[in-house]
């Protein structure tokens, strides 16, 4: 039996790196494991960017295929997942450009707004806002609310807070600086909070009906 010893090194190799190595050598079943591990996340991210289910499905296919074709370029100095997310974000933006022919699409869209940089709705929320709505109504509220954010804020919030990437990984995946990610994240969080307040504030829900 042979074992690989990294004499004295405490550095752990991420399991994804081993799968990538096997996939590079032509082992499609190793790549299949990576697809199964990350396809839901890629689908969610793509959906948040394109806001279109069919486009998001296409992005899942295109992103994994592109990743497979470019496996040789994966350096291993970032996580495979971060590298994959970067490919998926680019594919999703390209898909969006096709839909909105002639219109510029980028993750810098509408980020100059000052909206939400200072909290205005200062009413406290119900102690259990989730109990105010049924599961599907809640889903609609959350979807509608996050869709209203500028693209450049939405994608930062999704990667950082929903998908759990670190600030550095989010910056890496989006090609932004760390300060830019931090500034967008704060404003994304504050804008979402502000917009959700009308549904979740104490003393009855005032949202829903317009």
């Amino acid at each position: 039996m042979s074992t690989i010893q990294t004499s004295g090194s405490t550095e752990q190799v991420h399991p994804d790196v081993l799968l990538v190595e096997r996939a590079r050598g032509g082992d499609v079943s190793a790549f299949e494991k990576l697809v199964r591990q990350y396809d839901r996340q890629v689908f969610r991210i793509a959906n948040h960017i394109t806001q279109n289910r069919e486009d998001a499905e296409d992005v899942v296919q295109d992103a994994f295929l592109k990743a497979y074709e470019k496996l040789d370029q994966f350096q291993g100095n970032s996580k495979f997942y971060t590298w994959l997310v970067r490919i998926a974000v680019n594919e999703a933006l390209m898909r969006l450009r096709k839909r909105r022919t002639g219109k510029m699409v980028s993750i810098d869209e509408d980020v100059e707004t000052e909206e939400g940089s200072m909290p205005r709705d200062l009413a406290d929320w119900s102690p259990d806002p989730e109990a105010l709505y049924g599961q599907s109504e809640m889903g609609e509220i959350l979807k509608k609310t996050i869709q209203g954010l500028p693209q450049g804020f939405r994608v930062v919030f999704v990667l950082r807070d929903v998908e759990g990437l670190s600030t550095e990984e989010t910056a890496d995946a989006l090609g932004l600086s760390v300060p830019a990610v931090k500034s967008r994240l704060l404003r994304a969080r504050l804008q979402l909070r502000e917009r959700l307040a009308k549904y979740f504030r104490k003393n009855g829900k005032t949202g829903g009906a317009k």
Partner: protein
Amino acid sequence: MTCTEFLAQLDDLIDNEVTVALRADLEEHLRECEHCEITLNTTRKTIEIYRSHEIYVLPEEVRVRLEKAILAKCRKC
């Protein structure tokens, strides 16, 4: 500490990335400022709600179809 100064540290406080000394200053501000306390708590709740509700679910049958299509193309690469 003013509310603007507190807000500038809000994300780091939520993400547990503040020093002990700064945390003490922020907590002191919170004891005196109900608005900032509400902003902190409701921002935390906002993140928690988005984390715990999967808005875009990939149905299993679609997932299987996509995986098959991806792997079939990979084998032809």
